[in-house]
């Protein structure tokens, strides 16, 4: 891990009318680190993710990204062309609903190849080879490379979305409830896959989840959000085994033991 955070948020605030979705949130994400943002519905965690990824503009505060060369840039001040270039090269975004993150009318191979083509790949054979390799890596049979995502199960779609995001080897990936809406056994395999890929590739991940178990499995560090504020943060095991804030204690104690 290097000395400087890859992404820093400082004093982020955002209100929707009278609702304060973010209220002075600051956090750092370090290269190669998985940071889980947990909290109940409406705590502002998804909004925080969208603001950090430049998809929403905060009322106050700033997000700074440090690129491969060590140059730092303001996410909300760099302009749309630069932000889009980042979003398809050094960043990735995995959505809860695979239908938002995938092109449903395009084959699995085309979905994985899109980011390659968007960054200038123009050799059909090598794009296809790379797509097949990634399908295999996320445990989808390469024989299904020409099938559309509509014919895939929910878990497969989510794995396809991950392949499509990671194919250009981003440094920073935002994940919004990547296991939401899947059944428990599928969730477990997907979490396992994400954990393997993230540690192999050394990607920094900002993971939004309401699933404490997923956070414990994947995350190095944890922040707990409530009503737009961070109420507790620390190493995952420390926060989950020794929660200090009353809300975190409530959250941890409400997990059902199997």
């Amino acid at each position, binding site marked *: 891990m290097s000395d400087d955070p890859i992404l820093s948020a400082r004093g982020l605030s955002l209100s929707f009318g009278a609702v304060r979705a973010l209220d002075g949130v600051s956090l750092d994400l370090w290269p190669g680190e998985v940071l889980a943002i947990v909290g109940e519905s409406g705590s502002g965690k998804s909004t925080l993710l969208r603001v950090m990824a430049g998809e929403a503009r905060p009322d106050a505060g700033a997000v700074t990204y440090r690129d491969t060369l060590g140059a730092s840039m303001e996410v909300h001040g760099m302009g*749309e*062309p630069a932000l*889009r270039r980042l979003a*398809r090269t050094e960043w990735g975004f995995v959505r809860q609903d695979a239908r938002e993150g995938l*092109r449903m009318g*395009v*084959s699995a*191979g*085309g979905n994985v*190849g*899109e*980011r390659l*083509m*968007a*960054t200038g790949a*123009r*050799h*059909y*054979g090598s*794009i*296809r080879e790379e797509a097949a390799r990634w399908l295999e890596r996320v445990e989808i049979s390469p024989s299904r*490379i*020409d099938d559309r995502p509509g014919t895939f199960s929910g878990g497969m779609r989510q794995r396809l979305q991950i392949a499509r995001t990671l194919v250009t080897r981003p440094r920073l990936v935002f994940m919004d409830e990547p296991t939401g809406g899947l059944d428990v056994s599928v969730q477990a395999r997907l979490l396992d896959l994400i954990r393997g890929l993230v540690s192999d590739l050394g990607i920094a991940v900002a993971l939004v989840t309401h699933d404490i178990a997923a956070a414990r499995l994947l995350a190095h560090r944890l922040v707990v959000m409530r009503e737009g504020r961070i109420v507790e943060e620390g190493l995952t095991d420390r926060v989950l085994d020794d929660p200090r804030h009353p809300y975190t204690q409530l959250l941890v104690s409400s997990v059902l033991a199997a």
Partner: protein
Amino acid sequence: MSTPMPESGYNFAYLDEGTKRMIRRALLKAVAVPGHQVPFGSREMPLPYGWGTGGIQVTAAVIGPEDTLKVIDQGADDTTNAVSIRRFFARVAPGLRTTERTAEATVIQTRHRIPETPLSEGQVMVYQVPQPEPLYKLEPRRAETRRLHALADYGLMQVKLYEDIARQGRVGSSYDHPVMVGGRYLMAPSPIPAFDNPKMHMSPALQLFGAGRERRLYAVPPYTEVRSLDFEDHPFEPLRANGHCALCGARDTYLDEMITDDRGGRLFVCSDTDHCATRREEKAA
């Protein structure tokens, strides 16, 4: 062909001078930014949308009494659309000459083809365009396609070509195959066959495109690079039927397939009627 009498009561070439000026302004902008779609205030024309209202408005804005107009539809000068547009201009533009000869024309309005006879400097091609947005089948939101053009973010189009090869084994569209103009803007060449795409590249003629229903104009100035999209290992190939013209014997022109009876009889003829007739005259002489 008898020349119809010019009709009184209309301004020259049907449109009023204010409208022509508006269209010319949009055309100047289009020529200045090759391949970029410029909005314009499309007028009601005395023919239905889809029959060339955009092309007619562009033609009306650029022709003068000293011009010679040729109109083709699918390469032919004698089909309904071509004949009625030619008659229309003969009626509302006194002094304007019409022709079927590519070499004699100063303005050529076209639907679906570029003439086989090479174009020369000073000629103006006017294309009738049904859908000016090359990305519309991939991205239905017009605000979003404009953003993609502004950022030159054309990975999506390449994805479509990828899908074509994955399904059909080759870069797929036989007509309206997308092109990059001047290395900057992605452009729909109008529904001309892919066979004609190479003729746009470095053409000495000025090429103007009008989409009446969609209210967009765009242009390719003379001697501009026009490259058909493809992959390094699946290069663009101009498609044509594998055969020769039954009338003039040409083996290098774009061919139409004609069904001659109901027992499977068929033959190929040149789609460019003027080029075919000229070749036959030269043979007979």
